[in-house]
């Protein structure tokens, strides 16, 4: 069985006939070749696969692509400006050394941007709670928190 999926991904309309089992992350990575969204755990725990679905951060390994039918999806590839300038959150992560291996970074950045949209001036505690669903095995989180604070202070 295949089912037709219609989505808007990073501002572009996408249409495909897919096996209903296809996870959203699989569709993004394997069908659309948007490999910036990572798969860390594949069990909904680590947050590496975080994207925005209709403006909200969700874990794309934990939903079917068909659950996003008709929705707007934003991935890390769609965050930078059209001319290639990095998003302010990406700039802040770079400046504050908010990453080491970089594996968790796309998910962290997507969660952090969703957090600031909801709460533009979060406290440190609110940042830590807001990034609760994202794990980093390298940084110890200090510089990630600093990056989000830096980005929030600039906007």
């Amino acid at each position, binding site marked *: 069985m295949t089912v037709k999926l219609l989505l808007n991904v990073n501002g572009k309309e996408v249409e495909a006939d897919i096996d209903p089992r296809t996870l959203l992350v699989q569709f993004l990575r394997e069908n659309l070749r948007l490999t910036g969204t990572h798969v860390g755990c594949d069990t909904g725990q680590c*947050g590496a696969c975080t994207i925005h679905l209709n403006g*909200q951060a969700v874990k794309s390994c934990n939903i079917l692509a068909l659950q996003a*039918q008709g929705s707007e999806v934003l991935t890390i590839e769609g965050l930078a400006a059209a001319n290639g300038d990095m998003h302010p959150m990406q700039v802040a992560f770079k400046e504050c050394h908010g990453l080491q291996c970089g594996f968790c970074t796309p998910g962290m950045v997507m969660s952090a941007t969703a957090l600031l949209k909801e709460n533009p001036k979060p406290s440190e505690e609110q940042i830590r709670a807001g990034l*609760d669903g994202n794990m980093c095995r390298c940084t110890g989180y200090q510089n990630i928190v600093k990056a989000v604070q830096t980005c929030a202070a600039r906007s």
Partner: protein
Amino acid sequence: MYAFQYHRPGSLKEAAALLGKLGDGKALAGGQTLIATMKLRLAQPSDLVDLGAITELRGIKVEGDALMIGALTRHAEVAASAEVKKRIPALAVLAGGIGDRQVRAVGTLGGSVANNDPAADYPAGVLGLGATVITTQRKIVADDFFDGMYETALKPGELITAISFPLPKRAAYAKFPNPASRFAMIGVFVSQVANGSVRVAVTGAGGGVFRDAALEKALTANFTPEAVTSVKVSASGLSSDMHASAEYRAHLIGVMAKRAVVAALG
């Protein structure tokens, strides 16, 4: 994940009809539990009936002396709802403490209650407030709904459409979260209604959410933190696992009940 046939009905009527005729069909709400279960091949439904397009299942409204929340309402929506914060703030706190932001953006009230995970938060709120589960077939009071680990009174094909939470005089929820999953190691929901009677529901302790009669009696007589301290919570029947012993869980029930009473007295 095993293959399945996918359906996305636009109305509740259509969804109920589909589930009625598909032998091994399952409803899909947020998928925050079901997708993981299917990946592990612990569930292999022949058909998935995605409720995502059924807008009539979403929303929060006040009806008389109760707050009516649609089954498909997301945890994040309940946590952020001005109506919930005003009428039953404890429920907003509970929803805002489920998992993490990504899970709350997708997971639903109906999915959580239907799933009845023994460490889930919502079952404590539903039982602790004496809510009524409204389904496609009937109304089920909370005391008759939960039936032990992952079991409920729901029949195959029966869908939760909404849950009606009576407005309490005061209520609060206190949870000791498992540091990894955020599920409740112990969660205690306490509510008091206008005539003074108190309900205390405990989650995370054993085979499923339950009421604690001794705490209810002590708190109905005297709604204070001291009343909680006067009750010795027994470890008998509570679960012991890698996270906590039964004795530690019994201790946590007392601590969380006390915190909930303090919060309810605000």
